[in-house]
């Protein structure tokens, strides 16, 4: 029960990790020491510092966005785009295998 998640940094570096199902995209980054996701609040949809952009060519269906996430994305440090999400609100499942996400320029 793992999914391969690709994290791409603004400087072009790429990290690919296997994230256990049930963990979030945020935890997948933080516990593997992937910089670029701060997750100051630890994953409660309260700080907006795990902002990511889903790859524009993505075709994988994503978990739905709740109001709190939507509200926080309005005040992220890097601009909100149509493909913006909070990584803590995206639990990993087998269905997300192969997902590619991009880190923003800044989280604070």
């Amino acid at each position, binding site marked *: 029960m793992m999914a391969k998640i690709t994290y791409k940094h603004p400087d072009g570096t790429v990290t690919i990790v296997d994230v256990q199902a049930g963990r979030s995209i945020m935890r997948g980054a933080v516990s593997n020491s992937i910089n670029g996701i701060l997750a100051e609040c630890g994953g409660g949809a309260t700080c907006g510092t795990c902002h990511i952009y889903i790859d524009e060519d993505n075709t994988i269906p994503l978990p739905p966005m709740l109001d709190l996430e939507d509200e926080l994305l*309005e005040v992220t440090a890097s601009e909100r785009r149509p493909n913006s999400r909070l990584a803590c609100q995206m639990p990993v499942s087998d269905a997300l295998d192969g997902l590619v996400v991009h880190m923003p320029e800044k989280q604070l």
Partner: protein
Amino acid sequence: MSHIRVVVVGGGQAGFQTCAALRDNGFEGSLTLVCGEGILPYQRPPLSKGYLVGDADIGLRADSYYPEQRVGVVTAIAAAVDRPAREVLLDNGVRLGYDRLVLATGARPRSLPVPGSRLDGILPLRTLADADALRKALTGCRRLVIIGGGFIGLEVAAAARKLEVDTTVVESMPRAMARVLSVEMAAFLVSVHRSHGATVLLGRLVTAFDGDVTGRVRKVVLDDGSRLDADLVVVGIGVVPNVELAVSARLPVDDGIVVDSLLRTADENIFAVGDCASFPSPHTPARVRLESVQNAVDHGNSVARTILGGSAPYDAVPWFWSDQHEVKLQISGISTGHDHTVVAGSLDAGKFSVFCFRWGRLVAVESANRPADHVVSRRAFAAGKLPTPEEVAAPGFSLKEFAAP
């Protein structure tokens, strides 16, 4: 600088962050983290929330992080500091030499000095071991009494109600979270807990615990003479900073290890960070000791930069959060001593922020389910661009628009 030895005492959030920030900022010297709990650093916030109801993912980093980052983890208790020799003495007899020492010794739960407080079934909550014991005790618990209506008490109450445990909270002050929250937010939170079936008693002191023949707690006795049935008690009445190591090293302490704006103690080679440190802050009128993840993380980052030669005073905006039932509570700033409040948003809908002012100056923003207000208010505090009470009270006020550059 690159070959000095840094020893960090305490494997909580602040100690961990000190190590992580040192390596992130290019520190090449030797780095030792003394962990007293016998396990690698983990997140404490979930222990009073999701962890009690099943969510168990709390490690701060994978086990492989420490060898990869050359962080030597030593499982021991630091017993004393020999300042002339620049050594930390561990309880296993080992002496660890240091060039820079960071005390991240944390705090321990305050105990309740009343008759019966040593009965079985009366539990504190601070460590993972505490949380494991509480989680186990909650299974099969029929009547839980929580002493203290602060962060820990109310979060445990929410978790216990989720597990359908009969729950009573006893708070000695006339309102919940009195030390940190406005009257408005405190009243709202109490109403939320009551609507979820918890009994919340305010302004009541515990005078004793009564047990049965097996030595297990059965009753909680209050100052009005009432006796509450209980087969489990959680005591969440605050913490005491762990200053003993600093005292043994003859460093000044005053409700915490006294440090300057660089988080340095009276010994320029010894620093203190996190829950144990009493520090000057531009965001509070007097020196302050804060118990929060924000404080631990920002202290860790700051002390790492100082050890690497930086000289920027610590000035991070304090912030806090709590999850209780459907309420995401977030606080920016420090509301102590506020004399005026303005509420923005809808209390009925459970989405609002309380703006707290002292002498007309905004000192804290408490947000319930309004995370954008929280995020923007932190930026406003950091920039010093703060609205007046009149501005906040004006129809159509938007903090986001106000704070826009």
